């Protein structure tokens, strides 16, 4: 479904389904990108589709970090990092890797490694 959605964006609209870029575009934080209305439509579609799927499945189980500070810090770093690195799991990981883009393959390997190290360090420090 995720790959199908990204394929629909590419073949239908000629755009990369990169969530970080589209989110920034939707709220006016990016100069480049599709017309804002398209970015807004895609971004609104995410929770809509998630909600419909949760209804169909009779609920999905989610476990968030309980600490608000954790969410705030992580959110800030994810927002800044995805803009600096021009993409996240969807844009680099799904769209770019399947295009065999050198930049996207490098970015994906780096953020995966960085995430693995972060979780390992947090476990060692007893933070999770």
């Amino acid at each position: 479904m995720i790959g199908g959605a990204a394929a629909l964006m590419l073949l239908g609209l000629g755009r990369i389904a990169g969530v970080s870029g589209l989110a920034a575009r939707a709220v006016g934080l990016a100069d480049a990108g599709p017309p804002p209305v398209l970015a807004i439509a895609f971004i609104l579609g995410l929770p809509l589709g998630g909600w419909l799927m949760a209804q169909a499945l009779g609920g999905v189980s989610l476990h968030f970090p309980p600490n608000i500070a954790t969410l705030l810090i992580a959110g800030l770093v994810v927002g800044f990092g995805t803009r600096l690195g021009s993409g996240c799991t969807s844009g680099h990981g799904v769209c770019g890797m399947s295009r065999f883009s050198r930049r996207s393959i490098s970015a994906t390997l780096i953020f995966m490694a960085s995430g693995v190290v972060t979780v390992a360090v947090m476990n060692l420090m007893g933070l999770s």
Partner: protein
Amino acid sequence: MKQTLLALLAGALFGAGLALSGMSDPAKVRGFLDIFGAWNPTLMFVMGGALIPMGIAWRIQAKLRTPLAAERFNLPDTTKLDTKLIGGAVLFGIGWGVAGLCPGPAITDLALAPRSAFVFVLAMLAGMGLFRIITSRSTPANEVKAPGAIGK
């Protein structure tokens, strides 16, 4: 209108896929990243599964002159590896590991766990705003001084 509906449909399909696959669960994502601990590799198949239709889509794209519902393809053409890409990916990975959330699942979760997801998404947009402020300040002076360059 057709384009807007198509974008909405793509977003909904994407969000549904995230909810179905478990990518929307931060604990499951952290479990996927925890390869030295209680590793849960199932999300690797989600990523692999997404790469297959996209790989086919790129093959089709190479044969098309225009997209099916737009005038032209607007695709990134940069190939250079630079410090921005590397630094951004390192930072993103840290945030991803800390909370188990990347942008797609976080926005999808606004409908599934509104309170926590809202805090994360708000902070994420603040981080994007911070990046914009910093990069607009570091614009070369001659560009800023050029007449009419102020504003958009």
